[in-house]
């Protein structure tokens, strides 16, 4: 069915955002915990370099999530943004602070300015995923239904808090794994160990939070809990656990390239498992996919637009990541922006 296909697209885009955006938030998280100016200099240097070329792309996924929600499932969009008003508003504020902080830190040369922008960037890297996760967790509890008005209860309950913390921990995990790989890529041997340790720690925290989450959701978000602990949902969760453990081992063996893949897989599988667990609902247990679906013609067009986009956007996206991992993407330095810059002789076409 068309609406199911669009729901799958939505889930795929949410997963992509969780992984790409998550890595990005995670880098910000470690920026926050990197310590003072002197101690944090090296990790921050790496974080800046690793994030720079790709952070905008990583965060554009969020816009798709919103667009597919309102075009494909208008009622879902209306319900979520009405009931989850405050966390989403705060997440939006966090996005502004984060982006602005990161973008302005780089061209700023004064230390005081860099400190302020860096702090703003790092703190909002923590808060934004927390609020987004809390909103998603609140939806899983069934406290929200079409027509529900905004209330603190919808997003400040146990499940929401755990979901928010899990989101932050997952971003920290992804960020640390990717930064370990980047440290190797940039030949910064000291930072490999630094971020590897952090990846292991965040994985441990993640495991503890997941166990707490299992207990909390048992009564609080029964439908999703059942979906995640039985059938296909459970299978996905188990595979996710295996790949998370594999990540830990791969990091130990210094196979950072593979570790990146398994880390992304573990987060992606959990998101997909959560999506499967709440089938056929978009909001358990009040709004199903077919109830929320917009006009069929629009959904078909949305799929068509998506298909065209995959063809158009896919290759450049692959190119970007390849160029980035090959080290071909480097920021312009002050020296390049000087009149004395060695003008590279242009070739003939």
């Amino acid at each position, binding site marked *: 069915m068309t609406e199911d296909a669009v729901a799958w697209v939505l889930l795929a885009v949410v997963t992509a955002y969780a992984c790409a955006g998550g890595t990005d938030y995670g880098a910000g998280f470690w920026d926050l915990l990197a310590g003072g100016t002197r101690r944090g200099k090296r990790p921050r240097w790496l974080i800046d370099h690793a994030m720079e*070329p790709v952070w905008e792309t990583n965060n554009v996924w*969020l816009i798709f999530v919103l667009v597919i929600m309102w*075009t494909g499932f208008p009622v879902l*969009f209306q319900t979520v943004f009405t009931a989850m008003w405050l966390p989403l508003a705060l997440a939006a504020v966090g996005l502004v602070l984060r982006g602005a902080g990161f*973008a302005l830190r780089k*061209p700023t*040369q004064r230390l005081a300015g860099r400190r302020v922008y860096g702090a703003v960037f790092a703190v909002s890297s923590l808060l934004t995923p927390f609020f987004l996760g809390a909103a998603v967790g609140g939806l899983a509890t069934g406290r929200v239904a079409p027509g529900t008005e905004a209330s603190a209860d919808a997003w400040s309950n146990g499940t929401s808090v755990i979901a928010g913390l899990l989101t932050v921990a997952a971003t920290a995990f992804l960020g640390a794994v990717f930064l370990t790989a980047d440290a190797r890529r940039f030949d910064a041997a000291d930072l490999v160990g630094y971020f590897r340790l952090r990846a292991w720690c965040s994985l441990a925290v993640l495991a503890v939070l997941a166990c707490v989450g299992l207990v909390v959701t048992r009564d609080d978000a029964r439908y999703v809990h059942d979906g995640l602990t039985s059938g296909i949902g459970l299978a996905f969760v188990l595979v996710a656990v295996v790949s998370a453990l594999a990540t830990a081992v791969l990091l130990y063996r210094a196979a950072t390239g593979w570790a990146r893949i398994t880390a992304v897989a573990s987060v992606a599988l959990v998101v997909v498992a959560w999506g499967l667990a709440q089938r056929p609902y978009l909001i358990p247990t009040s709004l199903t996919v077919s109830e929320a679906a917009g006009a069929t013609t629009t959904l078909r067009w949305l799929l068509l*637009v998506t298909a065209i986009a995959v063809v158009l956007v896919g290759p450049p996206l692959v190119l970007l990541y390849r160029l980035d991992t090959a080290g071909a993407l*480097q920021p312009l330095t*002050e020296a390049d922006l000087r009149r004395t810059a060695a003008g590279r002789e242009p070739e003939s076409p």
Partner: protein
Amino acid sequence: MNSAIDHFLADGPAQLLPARELMAFTLGSHILLVPFGVALPAITLLMHYRGLRKGDAVALLLARRWSAVMAVQFAIGIVTGTVLSFELGLLWPGMMGRWGDVFGLGFGVEAWAFFLEAILIAIYLYGWRRLKPWTHFWLGLPLPLAALMGAFGIVAANAWMNTPRGFSLDASGKPVDVDVRRAIFTPMFGPEYWHFVVGVVLTAGYVIAGVYAVGWLRGRRDRYHRLGFTVPFSVAAILTPVQFMLGDSIARSVFHKQPVKFAATEIVWKTDTHVPEYMFGRLHADGTISGGIKIPQLDSILAGFSPDTKVTGLSSVPASDRPTATQATIAHWAFDIMVTIGSLLVLLALWYGWCWLRRRDLPRSPWFFRCAAVAGGACLLTVECGWITTEVGRQPWIVYQNMRVAEAVTDTRAPTLWTMLGLVVVLYVLVFGAFLTVLLRMSRRWRLADEGAGTAAAPGDVEGDTPYGPRPLSTTGGKDGGGT
């Protein structure tokens, strides 16, 4: 303005005014960055091409510096733009819930186009050092196309709000039988799109040229400033008369498709022929007009090329279905300011064109450069004015004749929204202030470096050498990579 606030308050729920102000403020801020998001890559690529083609180091330096500016500007544009997507849900859930599937597809196109733009811009901005020069240029070349595609989606959505179609209503008033093609290509789409695209390109052109016009006036009359001025100014000057025609054409489309909005922008009260044109002036609630310059017959002539043209007046629809007198006055002033600035810019473009044709050189008069220096700011003002004209002129509708703004607004309580507005204003002032400061510092740094070219580092760099963060990898990689 106070009476405007009274009207707003009287018209809808208490949260309507803060919701509106919040949307207006965030969109009004974001729109200032839009011209650069759409057109700065194109103008930079033009300069880049010149640099590569002619082996011109100055042109390449300009293109690199514009890239450095673009990197910051694009990031601020992304975050302020994402806020708008959130606000569609946070402020206007009623509109998105009811109409999302009818007009949302434009946003779908926009989102993917924007994704493509983000990818390509990353490759372009970070490709200067390591990619082969021409490969780098060709990878950047699709950027303007992606930007045009993105603009397509956004303008399609806005045009639909002005002239909604592509659906029918069932008994309960819900839209059914959605026809996506008709919903995207609405009557206002074509005029709005071309007016928008040309408008943002020429705005970006004038703003960039203005920077170098200031340098020129301060006596920095070197090739660097000449080139930095000429390329963007020529683009803008060529487009200015085109925009004048397009603006005239969109006004006539509004006259045909949204007669009440046209009446508001021209403060026409009574449907009539031989309608006079008012330059500025103020419309009162009883239909009288005070102040302004009255030109007999002109409005009818502009609308239909003949004084006998019948122009629909505001009073042709009930007061609840049309903008209030204050709103009409706001839209009218915005429209007149836009037209006035547009006309002055045509004169400026002609001045430039005349000198170029006669002497193949820039005008000599400092007054030309003074005008060119303020043209960018004036253009940004017209962008705001154009947007105010179309949005305020549509009131009280969010979806013209189908949904009122008051029906679409969130249930969030007014105090919450006022608090959020206060927070956002402070935040945006800080972000935009920091953005401008960073740009000015960059420009100052480059200027100092240029003046002291050859000598070692400029004084401002002393602190820069011991940054909080990293130094770039490549050239100084050894120093950093070793660890200290």
